[in-house]
């Protein structure tokens, strides 16, 4: 477990080094933090440099930067008149909301359909499930979002096209985001379920005369959920890149959209803070999965 924790810390540190070196890659890092049309006096510029430790060697500069970053100080947003961190914090709940609803979609569609398709292999359900998985893998998320808008918002007029509002505003973006995730969940559940159903103890349980539904739920399902859990980390990646895309399609005021507008505005402070935050969330999710994994399966010890 300690080893895992060490890797996770190393990963976050490496991303920190990466972002720090990006900020120094173009020469004077102060250029990155200055927005156009904002004028500072020579004196301010110099004192700012001293604050960042530009007169000192690079390792010291890095430590200064890392110390500030650890306290959540990534500098001020170039667009909003606030710190980068508070710009992000304002949007965090929106992204969590969207991702949460999508996760519910993904699990409530992916898991049952995956089990159905594994249990009744070769049946209509299996064909539906596999087709769904194939489509989910091949359809670009942004295009699915736009098609949803064209059909349900423009042509039928049932749902709003974009932005945040009542619960109806959540439906289309969460379907777009949950779509790909539910397809990959389905694939994982199906393959691990198939593996477990082929195992000796399931055959034994059947031979004993345990009712079919009990075999599926008690013997197979519980054990088959271990493997998909490890892939939960991968699902998180789908989700993170997904939020960026979906939020930008639906003008959803979350972190993903902030990331894209920051690229357009060259808002380096906000982007660096977002990158660190996304990395932290990713690493945290993976650590949580590792812990959960050990709890569920007593055979595993770190």
């Amino acid at each position: 477990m300690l080893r895992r924790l060490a890797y996770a810390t190393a990963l976050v540190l490496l991303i920190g080094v990466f972002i720090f070196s990006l900020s120094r890659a173009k020469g004077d890092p102060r250029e990155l933090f200055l927005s156009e049309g904002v004028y500072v006096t020579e004196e301010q510029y110099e004192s700012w440099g001293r604050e960042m430790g530009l007169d000192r060697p690079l390792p010291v500069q890095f430590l200064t930067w890392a110390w500030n970053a650890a306290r959540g100080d990534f500098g001020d947003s170039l667009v909003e008149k606030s710190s980068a961190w508070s710009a992000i914090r304002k949007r965090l709940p929106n992204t969590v909301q969207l991702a949460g609803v999508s996760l519910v979609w993904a699990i409530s569609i992916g898991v049952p359909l995956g089990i159905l398709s594994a249990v009744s292999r070769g049946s209509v359900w299996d064909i539906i499930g596999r087709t769904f998985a194939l489509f989910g893998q091949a359809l670009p998320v942004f295009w699915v979002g736009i098609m949803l808008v064209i059909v349900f918002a423009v042509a039928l007029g049932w749902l709003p096209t974009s932005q945040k509002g009542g619960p109806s505003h959540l439906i289309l973006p969460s379907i777009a985001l949950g779509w790909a995730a539910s397809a990959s969940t389905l694939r994982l559940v199906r393959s691990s379920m198939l593996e477990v159903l082929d195992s000796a103890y399931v055959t034994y349980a059947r031979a004993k005369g345990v009712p079919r539904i009990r075999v599926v739920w008690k013997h197979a399902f519980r054990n088959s959920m271990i493997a998909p859990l490890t892939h939960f980390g991968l699902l998180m990646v789908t989700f993170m890149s997904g939020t960026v895309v979906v939020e930008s399609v639906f003008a959803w005021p979350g972190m993903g959209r902030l990331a894209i507008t920051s690229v357009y505005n060259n808002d380096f402070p906000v982007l660096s803070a977002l990158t660190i935050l996304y990395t932290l969330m990713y690493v945290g999710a993976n650590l949580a999965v590792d812990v959960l994994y050990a709890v569920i399966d007593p055979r595993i010890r770190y």
Partner: protein
Amino acid sequence: MHHRRARPVSVVIAALFSLCSFRAWHAIIFAKIRRWPVVPGLAIGILVFAAVFAPVITTHNPRLGNLRDQQIPPVWMEGGRSAHLLGTDNVGRDIFARIIYGSRVSLAVATTVLVFGCAIGTSLGLIAGYVGGQLDEILMRAVDFTLAVPFIMVALVTITVFGHSLTLLLILLILFSWGGFTRQARGETLSLKTRDYVALARIAGASGPRIIVRHILPGVFSTIVVVASLSVGGLILTESTLSFLGVGIQPPTPAWGLMVADGRNFLRSAWWISTFPGVAIFLTVFAVNFMGDWFRDYFDPRLREL
């Protein structure tokens, strides 16, 4: 003794007839489709053909439009023109032509990234697996690193600092695609290097590099083909996603992701601008993934997990 009875003519005729019958052909064709990936193969063939012979297939200029021909609907709709099969976009460029030329962009990006990622990843994997020890440890941690980082954020922040360029896009995609090759190549190498023929080669005095290239690489090859074919689809999707977000291929180059983005403001008046390029992405990725699955089942069914 057993006398072979001459086959009556009627049986032969019946057999010939059954060959002509629909059911028989149906069964044969389906067996072939199941055995060989005919449909995805054809789709990929058409795609490559379109990319290579784009100027022959369409005479429209994919970059320049005629402002008088804005938002012409596809040919089967009212107001459609036969000159513009899939209609035109908001600045009067032919969508069919842009999709055809766009296949060049997608294929070129995917191929370049794949060639570099595969070459770098495989050689590092071979070395890591063969040498082992500290080097192996470091390389595998590096692979973990590339797989554990939120790619899209790293791409966004890098592009913000260095500005848009095709080279940067390719480098980013390569940086995040070599890891899969390294992982698989290393795994295979670990098992191959314990084989007797490798030990014999070493006894015969073959050098390390020679053993890796001549004796281990051929054994790793099929796995690498599978990994490569399975990663093409993802690469095309990633490239089109970045282009859609405005941080990938830059206009006026006809890239599929960009075209979908072009139509975003015209969903009410011209749905076809965004729709058709997306269909092109979908069909391509679908065919390529199908091909990848087939390669995997054919070469290496053990790789089911991929």
